[in-house]
């Protein structure tokens, strides 16, 4: 900062005699040599590029990928109790749930559960109110490869939400 002030003063006003050291520095092109040294040094640093399709970066445990539904880890039943809380809280209105009363009395069960990834903003707000304990029925997975050939591929039905999905086939 002081260097800049000195330089600027010397150039604009010419009130003070130019510093001998500054002159020598300019004449010997000191800054240019420093620059060359920096680039030379950096050549020998290991690269920081990740060659993406071949290798991927390590995700943090709290990384929020696409929201998915979960089976019970032991009984392999759907965990979702069709309470519609995630649908209510979703700021993008991308969750669409259809439910019906269980035929054998108490509670409801899912008929269909769709998430529209085109609208989803991966905020994770749907996970917060999920009442199932100890695991939430909806969770943020670590999937982030979302490219698809058709827009219909972005609306994930219940089956995809539970088992994971593949991109649709390419069609002209």
């Amino acid at each position: 900062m002081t260097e800049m002030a000195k330089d600027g003063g010397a150039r604009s006003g010419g009130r003070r005699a130019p510093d001998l050291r500054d002159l020598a520095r300019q004449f010997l092109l000191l800054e240019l040599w420093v620059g060359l040294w920096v680039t030379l040094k950096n050549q020998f640093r290991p690269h920081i590029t990740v060659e993406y399709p071949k290798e991927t970066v390590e995700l943090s445990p709290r990384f929020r990928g696409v929201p998915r539904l979960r089976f019970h880890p032991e009984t392999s039943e759907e965990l979702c109790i069709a309470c519609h809380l995630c649908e209510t809280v979703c700021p993008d209105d991308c969750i669409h749930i259809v439910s019906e009363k269980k035929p054998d009395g108490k509670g409801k069960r899912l008929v269909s559960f769709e998430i529209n990834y085109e609208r989803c903003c991966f905020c994770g707000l749907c996970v917060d109110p999920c009442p199932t304990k100890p695991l939430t029925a909806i969770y943020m997975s670590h999937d982030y490869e979302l490219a698809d050939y058709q827009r219909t591929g972005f609306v994930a039905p219940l089956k995809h939400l539970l088992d994971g999905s593949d991109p649709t086939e390419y069609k002209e």
Partner: protein
Amino acid sequence: MDRDTIEHIVIPTGQVLVAVAIVPLIIAYLQLVERKVLGFMQVRLAPRRVGWHGLLQPIADALKLLIKEDTTPAMADRALFTMAPIITVIPALAALAVIPIAGQPFELFGYTINPWISDINVALLFLLAISSLGIYGIIVAGWASNSKYSMLGALRSSAQMISYEVPLGFALIGVMMLAGSASMVKIVEAQKSAGWWFVGPQLLGFFCYFISAVAETNRVPFDLPEAEAELVAGFHTEYSGMKFAFFFLAEYTNMIVVSSIVTILFFGGWLRPFPNIEALAWLENGWIFLVPLVAGASIGWLIDQRAGTGLRWMFAGGLAGAAAGAAIGVTDAFGLASAAIPALSGAFWFSLKVSFFLFMYIWFRGTYPRYRYDQLMGLGWKWLIPLSILNVVGTGLAVLLRA
């Protein structure tokens, strides 16, 4: 065919064909080296997909340029538009004619072949003349494209040429005075008899010449004629396919020519370091040590790059290469050390020095931002021209006083 025809027609033609065939190949790989070095300077990987560590990338690029559609803008001047790349590339290749790559001639099928195409006694003047011809190609390209960007690039190029031809020429005069000749071969021989490279007495001349030469070849930090941040691509904005490849070829040939001239005039051409110290005569065979050293170190470094192990393998590979070289040199295994004919040794030192200056070009490109237009003019007229005139006067006085 009698002996005369072969000596005066067939051999020079063969040399020309070899030069014209090999230089584009060298340039293709120089381009890969440039992309690699720039990548490493920016701590990234550079081309890697085509071939091992991107080694086939230049071939892919050349093929792409060959089969690409060759378009001409509707409002362009068609004749000039086609001529411009030719005008640029021919002088660039013609300049190679006077570059000697080694000192001693060698024998092939009973004929003596010189490691240069021609050794004329006005080689420096020829080079100055031919290198300023190449600029016409750029100006014609800018005019014929009928595009603002091309025109601005061409205008900048002509202004730059006028400013930098002067210090370029003055910087050479000092060397001519010391050597007493303008022939490339004589200049190198003068350095041998003087016992030191001319970069010593002509440090100022070297400085002026190299900066002006970077400006003449339109390379960073003086790449105003193509300034991709301001003028799209400058003078070759409208060019595609092979015509674009020709401009490219010319630019890189000019780089090689300029590096060769610097090597010959200031760094002793094919001479080894300290050419008159007998104790260092083993440096004549320097390639036996240096080539394995560099190869080992480079392979080690590539392993380091993959594994992220700092520079451990680079040093190990360099040491192993140097040791292998020393072993070959001492024991004369495979007759390699004694097979080092003078022409080969000269070519080795020459290409080593030229490679260093080509690396300097890439190094500058990785380091410096572009000059502003007025700064470029200021540097040329206010610094380089006075400094090079000072160099001429000083050298003249020194030569006069010593005589």
